[in-house]
């Protein structure tokens, strides 16, 4: 994204009055977001004049920095309905997830050894679980239903006397579906099991209340909510208290759960990002929903055989994940080079496997290869959406005319009836 694009505000978008949006268009808001200029502004003094170490207790430089950190802590706590004492700053959601899983598991080692999660979690949850399995913990990976949501009955059935933690993401990063957090929290609380949720994609996008939802730990990311990269937080409940073992040892900062000098400017940025998101969430949700529906409806009107991956209703407004049957995702991305999007196609990943999230929904491999993730956010305009739709439709039509699978489908040949040589 260009600096110009990042700096524009909704107010001057409408003033432009032309239909030609600024290129390239960023439609990958689940990957990361630009820092809101208001966030950058709040951060700047903490790089220069307010540079003190927030842990310096004996002079005004330290006090000034500490004040910035504590204001931010309150801002982060506020957006999730928590107490500020329950917010631990980390380097990002990956660290928060590692700390939540390994920290709780290690603390309870020898007493309880079972963790429950889902197959569609972010890699940092799945990989932390794999690591814990190697240490001797047992992990249940719950499947998800076709719409991407966890089956609550299966969750209930999976909990045993040995279960210490349930970790289920709030919003999926690929398909944007929202898990039933309040119901999951209720189940976990009733069984005396900690409930952790990776809310990197959820904070600022859906209302969250750790008390109403019985959430014991929550991972938060700065750069997914128009804050800086390299900062995140973990909410850790105090009543009833969540016990966990630190991963990083040192000066005992953050109630001993995460040592290291706090990065004041990043923390101030995260706090400001939360404050802005909290204030604007209502109106922004409506705006994004309008843009998302406009995009989806226009695509559906103009193209046959497109399939939405994941539930449409239980979904954040800024995400579409669509399979364009018979057109391979990376080939499509090359055709829409002015649009920055992601694909579930194997070719875009290092693994040569199509998206494990889409596979978990039961999306067939051939359709998983044809998926695009379209992420819209704070700086997306209606012109952006219209331009994107026009170019996606054009490109899909061009590539379908070139696709042997489309040709076979038109001739009524069932692609599954052919003996393909898998390579």
């Amino acid at each position, binding site marked *: 994204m260009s600096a110009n694009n990042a700096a524009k505000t909704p107010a001057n978008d409408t003033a432009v009055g032309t239909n030609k949006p600024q290129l390239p268009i960023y439609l990958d808001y689940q990957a990361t977001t630009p820092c809101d200029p208001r966030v950058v502004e709040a951060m700047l003094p903490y790089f220069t004049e307010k540079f003190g170490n927030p842990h310096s207790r004996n002079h005004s430089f330290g006090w000034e920095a500490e004040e910035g950190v504590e204001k931010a802590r309150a801002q982060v706590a506020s957006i999730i309905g928590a107490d500020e004492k329950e917010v631990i700053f980390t380097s990002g959601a990956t660290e928060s997830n590692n700390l939540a899983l390994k920290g709780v598991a290690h603390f309870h080692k020898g007493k309880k050894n079972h963790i429950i999660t889902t197959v569609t979690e972010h890699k940092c949850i799945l990989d932390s679980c794999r690591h814990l399995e190697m240490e001797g913990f047992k992990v249940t990976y719950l499947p998800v239903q076709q719409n991407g949501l966890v089956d609550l009955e299966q969750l209930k059935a999976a909990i045993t006397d040995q279960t210490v933690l349930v970790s289920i993401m709030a919003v999926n990063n690929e398909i944007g579906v929202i898990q039933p957090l309040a119901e999951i929290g209720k189940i976990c609380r009733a069984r005396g099991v900690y409930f952790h949720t990776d809310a990197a994609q959820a904070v600022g996008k859906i209302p969250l209340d750790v008390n109403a939802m019985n959430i014991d730990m929550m991972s938060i990311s700065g750069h997914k909510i128009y804050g800086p990269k390299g900062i995140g937080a973990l909410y850790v409940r105090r009543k009833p208290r969540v016990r966990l073992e630190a991963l990083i040892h040192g000066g005992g900062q953050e109630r001993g759960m995460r040592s290291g000098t706090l990065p004041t400017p990043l923390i101030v940025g995260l706090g400001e990002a939360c404050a802005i998101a909290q204030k604007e969430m209502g109106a922004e949700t409506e705006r994004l929903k309008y843009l998302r529906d406009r995009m989806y409806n226009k695509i559906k009107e103009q193209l046959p055989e497109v399939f939405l991956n994941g539930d449409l209703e239980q979904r954040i407004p800024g995400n579409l994940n669509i399979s364009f049957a*018979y*057109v*391979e995702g*990376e*080939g499509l991305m*090359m*055709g829409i080079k002015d649009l920055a999007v992601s694909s579930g*196609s*194997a*070719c875009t990943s290092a693994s040569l496997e*199509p998206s494990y999230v889409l596979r978990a929904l039961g999306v*067939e*491999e*051939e359709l998983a*290869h044809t998926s695009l993730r379209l992420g819209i956010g704070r700086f997306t305009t209606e012109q952006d959406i219209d331009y994107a739709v026009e170019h996606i439709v054009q490109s899909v039509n061009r590539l379908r*005319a*070139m*696709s*042997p*699978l*489309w*040709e076979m489908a038109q001739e009524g040949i069932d*692609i599954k009836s*052919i003996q*393909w*040589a*898998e*390579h």
Partner: protein
Amino acid sequence: MAYSNQLLDHYENPRNVGTLDKGEDNVGTGLVGAPACGDVMKLQIKVGTDGRIEDAKFKTFGCGSAIASSSLATEWVKGKTLAEAEQIKNTDIAKELSLPPVKIHCSVLAEDAIKAAIKDYRDKHLADKAAE
């Protein structure tokens, strides 16, 4: 990852997209790859009475490298005898398009498609040879 101009040109202006009548006696059809793997190539050749490939067409489901590889393959087989076309190597295709290492399999698939089309043509004419 930056793609070469040759690759982008073949992707944006693919040569010989289309379909020949696979029922015709002088047409050989190769269909390689698999939808589940993310790439399928259909390459067809039409052999003239002089034994040379007078026309070639392709359709490809796949990434830009796969589309470009098959487009280039059709360009290269035209005018060649079957024996000459058989000599086209995936490494030549990869070199011409400057394919990055992760895309080498696209050129392998293109070579396979040429060979499959030639085999299909030859299989159709086994009977002729037997009659001779």
